[in-house]
């Protein structure tokens, strides 16, 4: 991959951008997250991106006016994600509403600044680009202080044939720029997309990938890392996974780096009926609070249908905001013993997965590439040829996500035995009756099914 030729306009240098950001007169995302953590609040952030510039500005203004999220988003369109800037340009010119996000590279950094200056909340760019260098440069020039993704998490779920080697190299460049910006006094938050393919992702896979990306990022100079975990739907498991994040940070990352647990409200197949979707939105938000997340990325009751309208987005934020209610202290709780046990297992699994890759004498990027090739690192439902997707996840009787097959992951016998027992019972009596495809489909449609919605 070569640097973009399509990115229009001459970009200001890092130093100029850093000065611009410092002078912007609003907090960085990192500062907002630190503030939320200190006050015991969950910061809220919507996804939002539309094609047209005026429409994007109006959307941000409307969201801020009605729901005052702590962080605002520019969600980037799919063409831009894949560096198909000419396609983005064509749709933008012909039918901007046909874009599923804001083509920031095409709009250019001046418009990024305009958006930034229009609202009080700092902005994050959320995308899904295996090679985000052009996008990152425009984002930083636009004064944006948080950038989502990583060389694994924005490759394997988001593209088919970009090699891990090249995506890791591209992201290393981004992370080095973050380091340089930190030296200039601007800490860019780097949110790692532990959500991956979003569907039935076992917590230890999500966290292992994030740990590896965090190690790479902090070695490259990143000073603020948000580790995003996707709500799976099982209370104990989700709280345990969130709580594992600070422990993993202590074990693997330099002490001076800020690390924030982030929850993505359920990222798999959403129920279609509004009330059901709202139940799930509130549930996710409460899980974020119980798990000690610094930030929550919200969903909307239109999730199953398509990119949400402004109203639905506002309503989703407002509903999720209830998780910060001071009135719920006495009535929210979770079985802490079970959380502790589950967290212990999650941490053990993550260690089993990442430790071989992080072995002292190896280049971690090369080790990652090799591990994915051999399947000792893997993700389910990979879009990319560079992961095997030999993992088969399955929900246990309580709905927690387990490994039906762990592929070639280097999990211990004890770990594998536990997953087997949780799925089949100690005596194998819980063996599921349906066909593998039917079982998997039901697990994917877990929430619509739980709410008794008709299958699609």
């Amino acid at each position, binding site marked *: 991959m070569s640097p973009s030729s399509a990115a229009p306009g001459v970009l200001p240098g890092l130093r100029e951008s850093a000065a611009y950001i410092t002078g912007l007169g609003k907090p960085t995302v990192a500062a907002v997250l630190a503030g939320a953590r200190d006050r015991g609040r969950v910061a809220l952030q919507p996804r939002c991106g539309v094609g047209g510039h005026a429409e994007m500005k109006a959307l941000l203004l409307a969201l801020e006016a009605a729901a005052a999220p702590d962080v605002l988003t520019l969600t980037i369109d799919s063409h831009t994600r894949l560096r198909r800037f000419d396609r983005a340009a064509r749709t933008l010119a012909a039918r901007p*509403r046909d874009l599923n996000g804001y083509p920031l590279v095409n709009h250019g950094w001046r418009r990024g600044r305009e958006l930034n200056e229009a609202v009080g909340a700092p902005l994050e760019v959320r995308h899904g680009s295996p090679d985000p260098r052009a996008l990152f440069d425009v984002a930083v020039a636009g004064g944006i202080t948080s950038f989502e993704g990583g060389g694994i998490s924005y490759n394997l779920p988001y593209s088919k044939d970009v090699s891990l080697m090249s995506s890791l190299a591209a992201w290393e460049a981004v992370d080095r720029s973050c380091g340089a910006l930190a030296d200039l006094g601007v800490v860019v938050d780097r949110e790692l997309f532990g959500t991956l393919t979003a569907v039935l992702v076992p917590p230890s896979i999500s966290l292992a990938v994030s740990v590896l990306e965090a190690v790479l990022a902090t070695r490259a100079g990143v000073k603020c890392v948000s580790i995003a975990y996707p709500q799976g739907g099982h209370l104990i498991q989700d709280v345990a996974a969130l709580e594992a994040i600070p422990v993993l940070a202590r074990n693997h990352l330099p002490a001076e780096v800020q690390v924030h647990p982030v929850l993505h409200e359920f990222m798999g197949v959403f129920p279609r009926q509004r009330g059901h979707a709202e139940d799930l939105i509130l549930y996710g938000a409460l899980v974020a609070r119980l798990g000690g997340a610094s930030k929550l990325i919200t969903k909307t009751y239109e999730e199953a249908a398509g990119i949400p309208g402004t109203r639905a987005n506002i309503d989703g934020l407002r509903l999720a905001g209830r998780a910060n209610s001071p009135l719920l202290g006495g009535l929210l709780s979770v079985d802490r013993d079970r959380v502790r046990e589950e967290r212990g297992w999650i941490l053990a699994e993550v260690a089993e997965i990442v430790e071989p890759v992080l072995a002292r004498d190896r280049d971690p990027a090369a080790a990652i590439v090799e591990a994915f090739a051999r399947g000792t690192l893997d993700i389910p439902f990979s879009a990319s040829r560079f992961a095997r997707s030999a993992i088969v996840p399955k929900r246990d009787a309580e709905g927690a996500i387990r490994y039906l097959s762990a592929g070639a992951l280097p999990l211990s016998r004890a770990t594998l035995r536990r997953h087997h027992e949780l799925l089949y019972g100690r005596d194998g009596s819980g063996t599921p009756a349906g066909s593998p*495809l039917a079982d998997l489909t039901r697990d994917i449609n877990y929430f619509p099914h739980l709410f008794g919605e008709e299958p699609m």
Partner: protein
Amino acid sequence: MTQTVAQPTGLDGTAGRRLVILGVAASDCHVVANQLIAYALRGQGFEVVNLGACTPVEEFARAYRTHPEAEAVLIGSLNGHVHEDLRDLPEARRSGRIGCPVVVGGNLSVGSVKDPSSASRLYDLGVDLIVEDPDDLPAVLDRLRETRAEEARLARSPVS
């Protein structure tokens, strides 16, 4: 997606090999449905050339060149970009580089309020059929094959 029991699907008693080309549109990385559809069709006796995520029209055309016996090209699109992603389809159809029916399914416009013109725009691009439920695919493929056989018969017989 609910499961129907896998049935060996043969037309006119002829059992033979049945092949489809499957993939997700160019800008789109959603592969869960794609992988489930491939699995299900294989279970129902189809040979599936699955091109997976992010497949440009050109790549479908190349697959068709390798597999001219393909009964259909099945394209999924979830991210709302189907029209731009199939922009090169008319040319591929016209030139015969995709010479079999093209079936599209998924989420076919951007936004929670679906664009009612989406379907006609797709037909204008040379899509033959829009299918909602993947479970309908075997029946749809049977029907398409029947129609093509009928057309071939008509083309061969000089009765006008």
